[in-house]
């Protein structure tokens, strides 16, 4: 099989992570999400906790500055390390699934890239978050808004276009309509058609 890179962007609570894991399993390729943190921790000697603190966080423009591609912001540097890691993996010819990390844009130049964005109906997302995180309806709604806001800021900070804008992705799908398994089936068929 030629190189396959599946980039999965997702709204919080849409089941994007579970879908990405299922796709990785079906195509028998590794998934990079938390693994990126471990990899960078090993490479730099930082603790996973330290990296987690700055993971997928946009830098504050008021306390950070960029000079010729260098940035004083730790968030920026952690993000750059993750982008470099993904680019190197892609350049090595490896096939993998990656969650978030602006991968739909950062890996756009690779022919094997299939970029997906998973959305969901708000009521279904709340229901799922309440169940997974054992939260009240209000808390779940608050968490969804907070997490999506963070992902959006992170994405838009590093990429010129807006997070979730359908023009950035090959396919945007609402996981609430067919459920997780149904969505995975559709995506599997789509990816198979793409790599034929």
């Amino acid at each position, binding site marked *: 099989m030629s190189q396959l890179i599946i980039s999965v962007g997702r709204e919080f609570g849409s089941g994007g992570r579970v879908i990405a894991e299922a796709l990785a399993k079906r195509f028998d390729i590794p998934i990079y999400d938390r693994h990126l943190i471990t990899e960078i921790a090993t*490479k*730099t*000697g*930082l603790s996973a906790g*330290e990296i987690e603190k*700055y993971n997928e966080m946009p830098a504050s*423009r*008021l*306390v*950070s*500055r*960029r*000079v*010729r591609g*260098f*940035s*004083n912001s*730790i968030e*920026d*540097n*952690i993000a*750059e*390390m993750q982008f470099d890691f993904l680019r190197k993996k892609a350049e090595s010819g490896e096939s993998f699934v990656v969650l978030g990390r602006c991968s739909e844009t950062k890996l756009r130049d690779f022919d094997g890239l299939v970029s997906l964005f998973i959305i969901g109906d708000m009521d279904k997302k709340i229901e799922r978050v309440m169940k997974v995180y054992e939260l009240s309806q209000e808390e779940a709604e608050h968490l969804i808004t907070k997490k999506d806001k963070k992902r959006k800021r992170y994405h838009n900070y590093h990429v010129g276009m807006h997070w979730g804008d359908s023009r950035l992705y090959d396919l945007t799908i609402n996981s609430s309509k067919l459920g997780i398994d149904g969505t995975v089936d559709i995506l599997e068929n789509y990816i198979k058609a793409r790599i034929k």
Partner: protein
Amino acid sequence: MAAASIFAVIIFVAMFLLIVLDKIERHIVTLGCGALTLIVVFGICMRSGKAILGTLAVGDFFKKDFWYQVTESESKGINWATILFIAGMMVMVEGMAKAGFFRWLCMKIAYMVKCKTIPIFITFMIMSAILSMFIDSITVIMFLAAVTIELAQLLKFNPVPMILSEIFCANLGGSATMCGDPPNIIVGTSLGFSFFDFLMNTGLIAGICLVISVLFFYCVFRKEIVSESSANVDMSKFPKPSEAITNKKDFVTSSIIFGIAVILLVSHSATHLTVASIGLFIAVITLITSGKNALELLKKVDYKTLLFFIGLFVVVGGLEETGILEYIAQFIESISHGNVMLMIAIILWISAIASAFVDNIPFAATMVPVIQSLAATSGVDISTLAWALSIGTDIGGSATPIGASANVVGTSVAAKNGYPIGWGKYCAKLAPATIIVLALSTVYIFVRYL
């Protein structure tokens, strides 16, 4: 004129805010604001073609004074001498970096002190200051921080204190000469000072402060950088300095060109060659000697910074032509009640505080006409105000991680190698060092010039 002044201020404030917010690349911000200044302030409000031509200052290229200057002269509008000089030095530095000069120098010094951590710590601080006197601090720190981390991994010491000290000394070294830091080039070319004028004034201040800084950093950091293996260093495992040289011929050539640049700069008040001539000459000989690599070197030049300068000078020209900067000068004079000490303290400390948080280049470019006006109205020697401005803008930037370019590059190189430096860690040691050096400089200026 009132409308022109209002628009000039609005454009200037908008430019500053957009630079701080960093949403749009800064050269686009200054060029856009520069175009607005030309159209709205000079064209629509003032209807003055003379102001536009004066600010664009293209005629400067055809003046003998621009290339060969016997008597000191001041410039207005776009400071093409600054731009040409910076461009020339950029070409030269790219040539030196490509040949492996900086890495070779760092490794050579580490070898000379037998790879012992404390001697490396002290010599690297001094080297950082000396190199920054002639070369932009971004390049100096980029190489020095990378080698420091490499040595730290081999010798097993924490490189963060060393990188922080190198950053501080790079900014300090930059304040010593006319070409060390962009604010000094702007001050020097705008007010007609020579390399030697800076060396004998800000250079002496920087020299004294360097001694104090080395002692300060030695006292606060020595325990942190003691190496686990400092007692027994096996130098055979270290990369040899000669391995850093990518091409021997290019290395020798770039070293000679650097030597020529230093000689030309040190002697330019005697040879009467301006920094514009020196910049152009250095760029041309670097390109000629690099042969087929010339295009590659030219491509690496940071054009964005040069465009940033052009736009910036136009916007500041708008404030100058509309008389806003004279108001600021009058304001400084009135709050200091004619007290020269207070006036100097205000210029030095306000410049330092501003430079700790915002880019010191636009600040210096704005303040040059202010101190010119202040000197004319208050009778204070312009050179004293110029040294206060240079020291304030150059050294104030050391206080925070965003105050100067070297700080950003140094902390970025450290973070990418697993040594993140947040605001807390940075400011805990470098903010006190900055305050000490600024206080010392203030006292020095009072004692020597008043």
